[in-house]
């Protein structure tokens, strides 16, 4: 077991936790970094019924089949990224979460053609929540963020400002962030872009008042 304190998140040097200590007030947007998630990229033919069933048995839910939807339970979330591509995400920050998730997938898919690749270290997650979260994200992304178009549970790969990102809108707001009003988006971004994107979000969100939350 490697020492967890040696890990540095992409935004660790910004001291966000210290900033998040203050009161949130009437901010229109609340932002935080949710780092160190275990994420595995899965490439698998969805027509491989046997493999799909094996995954369902292993994880307790079926991989989402419809474009830009998610599925999952409290342990693991699956995001549809493409016709034969998913992300499986373990929200906790445990250092071995990613490798363990990959092992679980490889075990379940033993004997099938699939590519299981850990990518969690290459991303961080910026949580953007609050009553003006949709308006803020709409500024930098050409997708439609209206509640009728970007529905609870939806996910999508697109751009935000000049960074490639994956959006995930939580189906259950209260579960995602206790006490938060409004939608809760997780924005996954390559860690090299994280500081740029955070600065962009703070700048674009200034008119709504951005609260940094712990």
């Amino acid at each position, binding site marked *: 077991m490697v020492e967890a304190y040696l890990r540095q998140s992409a935004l660790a040097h910004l001291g966000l936790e210290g900033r998040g200590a203050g009161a949130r007030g009437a901010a229109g947007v609340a932002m935080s970094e949710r780092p160190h998630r275990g994420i595995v990229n899965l490439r698998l033919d969805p027509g491989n019924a046997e493999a799909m069933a094996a995954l369902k048995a292993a994880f307790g839910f079926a991989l989402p089949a419809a474009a830009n939807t998610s599925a999952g339970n409290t342990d693991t979330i699956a995001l549809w990224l493409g016709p034969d591509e998913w992300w499986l995400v373990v929200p906790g920050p445990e250092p071995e979460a990613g490798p363990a998730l990959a092992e679980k997938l490889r075990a379940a898919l033993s004997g099938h053609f699939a590519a299981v690749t850990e990518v969690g270290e*290459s991303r961080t997650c910026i949580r953007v929540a609050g009553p003006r979260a949709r308006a803020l994200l709409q*500024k930098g992304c050409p997708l439609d963020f209206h509640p009728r178009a970007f529905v609870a549970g939806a996910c999508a790969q697109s751009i935000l400002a000049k960074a490639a990102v994956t959006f995930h809108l939580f189906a259950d707001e209260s579960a995602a962030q206790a006490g938060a009003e409004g939608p809760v988006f997780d924005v996954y971004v390559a860690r090299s872009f994280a500081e740029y994107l955070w600065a962009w979000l703070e700048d674009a969100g200034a008119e709504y008042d951005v609260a940094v939350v712990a």
Partner: protein
Amino acid sequence: MTQRFRLPEGGLIDRAKPLGFRFDGTRYQGYAGDSLASALLANGVHLVGRSFKYHRPRGIFSAGAEEPNALVQLGAGARSDANMRATQVDLVDGLTAASQNCWPSLGFDLGAINNQLSRFLPAGFYYKTFMWPAALWMRYEWVIRHAAGMGKVPDARDPDHYDKTYAHCDVLVAGAGPAGLAAALAASETGARVILAEQDGELGGALLGLDETIDGAPARDWVAAARAELEARESVTILTRTTVYGYFDHNFLGLLERVTDHLAEKPARLPRHRLWKLRAKQVVLATGAIERPLVFSDNDRPGIMLAGACQAYVNRYAVKPGSKAVVFTNNDGAYGAALDLAAAGIEIAAIVDLRPDPEGPATERAEAAGLPVLAGHAIIGTRGDQRVDQVRIARISADGASIVGGAGEGAAQTIDCDLVAVSGGWSPTVHLFSQSRGKIRFDAELGCFLPGDAAQATHLAGACNGAFGLASCLQTGFEAGAQAAKAAGLKPGKRRRKIQKAPEASDDGFLPARWTWLVPSDRPLGQGGKHFVDLQNDVTAADLKLALREGYRSVEHVKRYTTTGMGTDQGKTGNVNAIAIIAETQGRPIPEVGVTTFRPPYTAVTFGAFAGRDIEDLLDATRRTPIHAWHQRNGAVFEDVGQWKRPWYYPKASESMHDAVNREVKAVRSSLGVVDATTLGKIDIQGKDAAEFLNRMYTNAWSKLEVGKCRYGLMLGEDGMVMDDGVTARLGEHHYLMTTTTGNAAPVFGHLEEFLQTEWPELEVRLTSVTEQFATVSLAGPNARRLLAELTQDIELSANALPHMGLARGRVAGIPARVFRVSFTGEMSFEINVRASYGLALWQAVMTAGEKYDITPYGTEAMHVLRAEKGFIIVGQETDGSVTPLDLGMDWILSKNKDFIGKRSLTRPDMLKPDRKQLVGLLTEDPAEVLPEGAQLVETVLAKPPMVMVGHVSSSYHSPNLERSFALAMIKGGRGKMGQRVFAPLQGGKTLACTITGPVFLDPEGERLRG
């Protein structure tokens, strides 16, 4: 300052909120709700600018976006905008504005001499005069531009900030007049997501300036009720002070929202302007119509205004634009204006009507009210220096081409006045429709261009589609809104209300009218008076006729030659008159002449809005490695490599770049260096056909690479040119990790995916980008192994266990790692890959343990020197997309036993020519001279260019190890010219002599990296 021309009551202004402002330094007062134009008129200020070419005095002409004259410089210093239409500027407390295009003052302008010289300044004057000599054009241009002038640019950078956003809706309604409001009501009735965009600060459009009733109550009440209803609907967004400035492909529209311009106190958190990039499923254009002037002699003096504008100033702003008015019209509509002016206490001296037998609903009301009408008459001239004070009037002939009684003063009568209200009919605002590539057609009865077939998902409502009566506006608005919602896929019904039926209102248009496009005078055209067609660019009817006489036929050419319609107002008032006069002169029907192109923007958009927040630090994304903070703290100077910030070198206290790079290079060769190699592209490749895939993508063979070993690969494009290179490791039976150059990571990934998906979908191979999954810390130097041994217990580092191009797994500094023994420096080198979040911890552990070896972090510059000493190429530096492996002397990496991408191209005759540029080394005869990269090389030096060039320098450095300069170069047939001299003639006259050598300068046997 008293507002002498403010009516005692009425209007939509707030008399409880007086606002102070300055125009040309003089203090005035207006009210909240005023535009700058209405506030100036309330104070009796008509003269507001000088015209572009002749510097003639000009006044406020309109009350809206079409304003050609009243363009002012707004604000001062850094917050200054030129060419702002006073008619659309909301008055705010403390506003300052200045007239443009005059010197030394508005009242006394030296440039007005141009008016006296106008006989010598015909259309095309500049083209004709300043064509020759061409070399002097730059000087002419400066003088001309200085003399013409269109306001001043701000004298400092813009202190405001701007916002941009994407947006989506089911139905966009452009314009919130009666038609637009009705459309928004009907569309949102279905629950559709509606955006209603209005350029004005208030909803209501033309109703704001008219005294109309709807359902028996004042029209403004209906507007207020409609607004309340719309605001109550959750799916409706109302954007005021928002101009739909462009209608592009696929129902993509540009909107400019002016967020804070109208606020005296501007909240710092709000952007000044917001640019909306809107994708609308359906669009309803309810953009209204613009009144046209009449083209008569000297029709440009201050006090000559559009009739509907006069009406708006009276009704909306409670301002009297004059005391004694002459109304000049060719249609019934202006009679309504005359009645409103009379009701406001303005004396109507005469209604001069081109129509011989005036008729129509408003005409009848005016006649009943006893207003004096001169039927079949025309204004044939005006007088007045800084404001119109008299008009001359004569009866015109039945064909409208001349005045009755012929030339001479006798035929005319004069009327004193200080206001001329003009109406030449109405032009539907088809700009957005035309921008969307919709067809425009001429309607002879209405005397205007109307929308024809739509090219996109566009619906039309109200006056912009020729429905000029109020009832028709409401009716077509409701219909268009409902249609648009239906077309957007929404079902009517659930919330159906009575409001779906249009309310009761009058339905008077402006017909009947008489189309006399060029009003005759008692003098020949162009002599003794000017018939202005384009007020902003000072284009007259005589100019148009001159252009036609000189042989210009197409309306597009006449436009460019005369500049009609090319001002900032884009000819909103003048274009139809210009086209009609061209048609009349050519004896062709108007549809045959056609229209000039309507281009975005409808009105000007601030550059700041397009830039938005994409400025300064946010101009582009910057990418940082997990170790970036350490580099920063330790004084690294960064180099941009694509979007990455990479340490270039790490200067100590007083070191120059040269000193720092020398120190770093020496440290690697003598003891130990460390570089952050995280940015190298990494692609994870899995599947049973992975080796076959690599065989096809790389020039060399991969089938026999053992698990746990690495191999250098070269990738070509289909043209046989070098595309990328890098080391690929075999991690498992069907598992490889490819590295790419930093800048090429994304293109290479795309290249691989393209072939996998489109050419060989049968291969069982899947790719995943893992560039950022790992942080890479690369140790290089004679002490690299010693240091690594101290940091790991479970990796065997001996030359046998981990040879050059070997791979090991274990822990380094307690962190799970992969260690690749690969080298880009020619030294023994270990690339340690750990999960990205441990990158900084690993780097710090290496730095601490490495102190005893004087471990030296080195940047990209030192790395480049080190690899060049070894003759290692950099893709993109030695190569430029036209270099083959053969040119680089890399025949050894081209497999003869298999096919690969680019292979066939390499056998083209041109690829085998002996005089292709080939990679060689280059040593200057003076070892202290460092050749500039990019320098061209010649074999024979001439006194001056051109000289025959035989190649160029691709990489060039000083080497502390060689204790001299050295370079890599691409030279024609270079490998056959070893030992020969070439010369680099440099800018400034210096020529450096060099000798061609092999490209490897250090350790050609590779002893250092194997050890």
